[in-house]
């Protein structure tokens, strides 16, 4: 434990013990103290639009059926039969009025209620031995949604989701609320990478410093015009309570002009103006910042970019992706990557935006490919003994006496909540790891 206390102390001063990216003991601790207490994203309501629709998702080792029952209510049911513990649903998605356990045939309504119990009278003497009424698949201890994003918390005493997210909701809206119709998710693509889950979460939270180098091939081929060194430096990074992200600085113009610059058609801009608050619109229209990547603690990330999707013109088009860094072990992560688009968007826009996503992110995305190569290499090296002697410097943006290299943006230059900052820095990665340390220090 002394050793762990050192880890957390170092992290608070921006020096990261390299082994945290591949350490079985810390992973066991993360399972017990972090993933059992934080709100974990599992699905979006649009993935189960019809009554009876379900998807099966995991929170670490626990499998949950996320269903829309026949009354239209969305539920999260622990996927384990009350009798002998078999998974009652072994598909990843579908539509069902009932789930029947393949072992002994107990069956459950899609709201979780136990309805069928073979030979109930012979085996249990009916309700006298086993009263069926009130028996249900275990519901998730805590289950809540924000803009259709569904989260599970394994802690029955968890703070409400809205409080957990706090001011980060202001930024979540940019990605998840572009009309009153809300988002439409497709996917996820799922694949496993031999990398620790924290690396991707940190990268999306605030690593604008890697973009000009790691992703220079994307600029070389003319797919994305923005990630040059100057543009990244001028963008603001922000951190607000449980999440933070990066932005790009847009050329001068009004809110509408800047939304058009990244490729939003006028009818979408019109709808966006009805759902984003004046303060949210000011971040784009007055301050000139457009959201790019972000992470919501602990392992949910977002990306919003605007590449060139056709060779016929210079037109760019935005896409949104939501992704989960699902830990498998200390050195392996399952990436779940969804394409997301405003449900009210025009058909052609949805088509082009999907294309933009596939070219840039996901299992085949050209941005993504180079990232993962780095993260696998880092994780492998972090598992050795020398990594225990190395503190990675994550103090970018700070002088040795902890004064900032560049002062935080004043409220009249950045209208969003939290702390915002221009220039190269690692504020967000530090904030994310401080939250990580805070959770791991709290006894189970």
């Amino acid at each position, binding site marked *: 434990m002394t050793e762990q206390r050192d880890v957390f102390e170092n992290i608070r001063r921006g020096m990261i013990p390299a082994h945290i990216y591949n350490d079985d003991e810390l992973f066991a601790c993360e399972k017990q103290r972090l993933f059992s207490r934080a709100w974990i994203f599992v699905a979006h309501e649009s993935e189960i639009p019809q009554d009876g629709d379900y998807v099966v998702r995991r929170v670490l080792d626990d499998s949950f059926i996320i269903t829309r029952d026949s009354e239209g209510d969305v539920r999260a049911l622990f996927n384990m039969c009350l009798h002998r513990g078999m998974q009652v649903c072994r598909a990843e998605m579908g539509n069902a009025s009932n789930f029947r356990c393949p072992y002994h045939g107990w069956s459950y309504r899609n709201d979780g209620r136990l309805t069928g119990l073979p030979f109930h009278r012979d085996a249990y003497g009916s309700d006298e031995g086993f009263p069926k009424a009130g028996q249900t698949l275990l519901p998730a201890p805590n289950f809540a949604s924000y803009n259709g994003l569904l989260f599970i918390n394994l802690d029955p005493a968890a703070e409400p989701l809205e409080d957990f997210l706090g001011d980060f909701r202001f930024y979540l809206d940019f990605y998840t609320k572009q009309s009153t119709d809300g988002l439409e998710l497709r996917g996820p693509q799922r694949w496993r990478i031999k990398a620790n889950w924290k690396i991707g979460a940190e990268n999306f939270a605030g690593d604008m410093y890697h973009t000009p180098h790691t992703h220079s*091939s994307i600029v070389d081929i003319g797919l994305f015009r923005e990630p040059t060194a100057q543009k990244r430096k001028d963008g603001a990074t922000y951190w607000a309570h449980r999440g933070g992200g990066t932005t790009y600085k847009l050329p001068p113009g009004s809110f509408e002009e800047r939304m058009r610059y990244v490729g939003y058609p006028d009818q979408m801009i019109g709808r966006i103006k009805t759902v984003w608050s004046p303060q949210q619109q000011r971040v784009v229209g007055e301050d000139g910042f457009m959201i790019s990547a972000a992470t919501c603690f602990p392992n949910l990330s977002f990306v919003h970019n605007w590449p060139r999707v056709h060779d016929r013109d210079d037109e760019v088009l935005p896409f949104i992706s939501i992704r989960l860094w699902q830990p498998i072990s200390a050195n392996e992560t399952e990436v779940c990557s969804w394409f997301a688009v405003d449900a009210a968007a025009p058909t052609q826009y949805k088509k082009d935006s999907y294309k933009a996503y596939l070219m840039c992110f996901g299992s085949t995305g050209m941005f993504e490919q180079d990232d993962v190569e780095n993260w696998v290499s880092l994780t492998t090296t972090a598992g050795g003994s020398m990594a225990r002697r190395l503190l990675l410097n994550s103090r970018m943006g700070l002088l040795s006496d902890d004064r900032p290299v560049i002062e935080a943006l004043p409220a009249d230059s950045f209208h969003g909540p939290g702390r915002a900052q221009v220039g190269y820095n690692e504020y967000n990665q530090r904030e994310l790891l401080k939250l990580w340390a805070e959770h791991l220090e709290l006894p189970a």
Partner: protein
Amino acid sequence: MSAPSARKPLPSLPFNDARHLQAHQFLVDEAYLLDAQQYEKWLDTLTDDIRYVMPVRVTTARGAAFDTSPGMAHFDEDKYSLSQRVARFATEHAWTEDPPSRLRHFITNVRTFECDPIEGVAHLLVESAELLFRSRGDVNESALVSCGREDLLRWCDDRYKLAGRKIIADESVLRMQNLAVFL
């Protein structure tokens, strides 16, 4: 080009049919280009209107009538997007393949089917099984992707070109760090 599977007539062409032999040779020659990462030459074996698709497979109940994720794919490419992927490898900054992977595309179970001419041009439907072995560096375990493919070959002047490909992955969760390779 639409997915050819629905229109596939049975039986397959005899293995000594010249059209089958040409189709088989096309796939084996293509596998060589992909192993050797000679992607410019590979692009030249594709028609300009190629549709190259790899749906995301999902586990569904028998009788669910679908086993791919609706509206989502790993690849959903046209000539432009494939060309961009190839152009990226030609830059000095495509780190994921520098150093390059060692690749082996194993192609087997090739069956060729007759196909009615499309707009007066001869086409063949070709089915194959593919196992891709990929090794990177000297520490990490190698990775495999197993899939089936349904191809549409079009006769273009003096040779067949690939006009459509549907790649059917055998895993719902890929065990490969990315698909910076072609199948």
